[in-house]
């Protein structure tokens, strides 16, 4: 059989095709009794209780997938929750964006000066020599470069946290909770988003261009996934401390800048710096790292 599905007209139809694919493969396994469809312990999957959220809170409904029935339910949920149309004429998030585009183009026809967006440059990068995309904009404004570098450090750290969280196996529940309490709301909502938004106000280059920066999401290909769990917590804690210190320096640098965007950005970065300091101390406490340092010290002394 041809494994490549026919082109789906909508995203919803694509997911239906995926669901049919699971049903077909499951039927094949049952025919030749070669094995089960899903391997791996379902208790290792992340569901709502791992995030400390009741089912449906913030529209989050994570389902463990361990057989054909649960796989089908998960796909049905994706289609329903994502408002993915099965019919090309149904309204969905995609059709709403198309509608917004049409309204924007109509507004521009009547008001050519209408500009609802900030002048964010295309593909901002801190390291142009490593860029794989032809059309990149190097970040050269020194303060902005510092901020984008901080963003990338935060992004990498968040990825490391999420990798360890989703790959949990036999981690003690309190450590998993400690990781969850940092990786989601604090990192995503209190760090990544406000810092990313602040970047869109900051001049990307240190000359007359009015273009602003944005998150570059530059990430080293060699993310340090430390195999030893306790050592990984120490690494993450040190990263949080580094981010707090970097943000403190960034706030000091901002004080010397006399550009209009500073007024928007200064209070956000000040709050970010406080949050990063608190997150580092929270993580140290949740993961009992201070106790570990004391134990290590005592072992060396005794």
């Amino acid at each position: 059989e041809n494994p490549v599905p026919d082109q789906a007209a909508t995203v919803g139809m694509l997911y239906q095709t995926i669901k049919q694919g699971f049903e077909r493969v499951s039927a094949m396994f049952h025919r030749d009794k070669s094995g089960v469809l899903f391997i791996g312990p379902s208790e290792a999957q992340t569901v709502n209780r791992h995030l400390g959220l009741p089912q449906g809170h913030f529209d989050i409904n994570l389902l463990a997938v361990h057989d054909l029935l649960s796989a089908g339910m998960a796909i049905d949920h994706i289609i329903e929750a994502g408002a993915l149309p099965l019919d090309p004429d149904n309204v969905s998030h995609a059709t709403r964006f198309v509608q917004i585009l049409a309204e924007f183009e109509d507004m521009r026809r009547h008001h050519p000066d209408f500009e609802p967006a900030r002048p964010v440059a295309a593909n901002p990068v801190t390291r142009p020599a490593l860029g794989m995309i032809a059309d990149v904009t190097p970040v050269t404004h020194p303060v902005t470069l510092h901020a984008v570098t901080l963003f990338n450090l935060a992004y990498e750290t968040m990825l490391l946290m999420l990798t360890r969280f989703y790959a949990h196996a036999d981690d003690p529940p309190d450590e998993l909770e400690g990781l969850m309490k940092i990786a989601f709301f604090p990192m995503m909502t209190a760090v990544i988003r406000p810092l990313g938004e602040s970047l869109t106000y900051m001049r990307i280059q240190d000359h007359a261009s009015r273009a602003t920066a944005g998150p570059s999401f530059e990430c080293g290909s060699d993310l340090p996934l430390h195999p030893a769990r306790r050592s990984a917590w120490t690494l993450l804690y040190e990263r949080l401390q580094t981010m707090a210190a970097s943000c403190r320096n960034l706030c000091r640098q901002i004080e010397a800048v006399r550009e209009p965007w500073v007024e928007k950005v200064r209070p956000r970065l000040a709050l970010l710096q406080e949050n990063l300091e608190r997150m580092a101390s929270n993580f140290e406490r949740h993961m009992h790292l201070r106790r570990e340092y004391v134990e290590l010290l005592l072992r060396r002394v005794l």
Partner: protein
Amino acid sequence: MLLLNFAGWFQARLATDPDPTDEPRGVSGFTFALAGEPDFDRVIRFHHPVAPRSHGPQVGVFVTSVSMAGQEVFDHPLLRASAHLLGDAKFESRNYVVRDGSMGPIDPFHLQICGHEVILRRKDLLYPDDPDLKLHLVPPAFLARRGSLMPMMVDRIRIADATGITDPIAYRQKRRELLQADLQQTADPVMQAALAKRIRELDITDPRKLQILTLSYYNEYRFDLNGPAEIIDPHNRLRGIVDTAQDWPLAFWMGGWDSDALCAYVRGMLTIPFTPFASD
């Protein structure tokens, strides 16, 4: 002892999870600054709301009863006095950074009761050893003392008793009808945009959605005001001595969050050590 019961609606113009604490307009949560309204400032206002929304509850927190030595006093000068939170108090959970969920402390906490030319004010110090210590450096135990005693809980009876809201969906539907009528009447495009957004949000009737659920939620707080106090009573209307050396126990709950009006209800009791003059 002087027991002051107080209650009323307050305003808090703030973004809600999963928006960041300092989100100025509301994007991902269920509260939004509308066309024509200023940015969110998160300030808890017991009086003088900013950009109050039409058909919302009347904002104002007042003393509802006064008791001394176990007896209610019906002509006390502080009866119907206004209660205020001074100093731009805000809820400070900071997206689970300072404390989980809605359990963060209200900071600063500077309560004022004033009526009939009598003013009582008392601060609560979050970290008495260093009152100027920044919030993010305060140890967890001190934040817990000033924060909500537990995560937001549902208590429809408590909320209904205080606010009269027995059916959140019907409450919102009534508001929607009033706004729909307003929309038909106005030609102002800014007002139209604001009303249309409110109506779209009020169209949400799924009882599992936070817009509905939070009308039945409450947080509870209980701590003793421990900071500097001020008593202003130029005409000696209190007819006694307020003890400012002892802490003043305070207990209150906040709930019934109306996400359309950006208001919620507060009800509480302040206990003030007080010795009436001998002739009383």
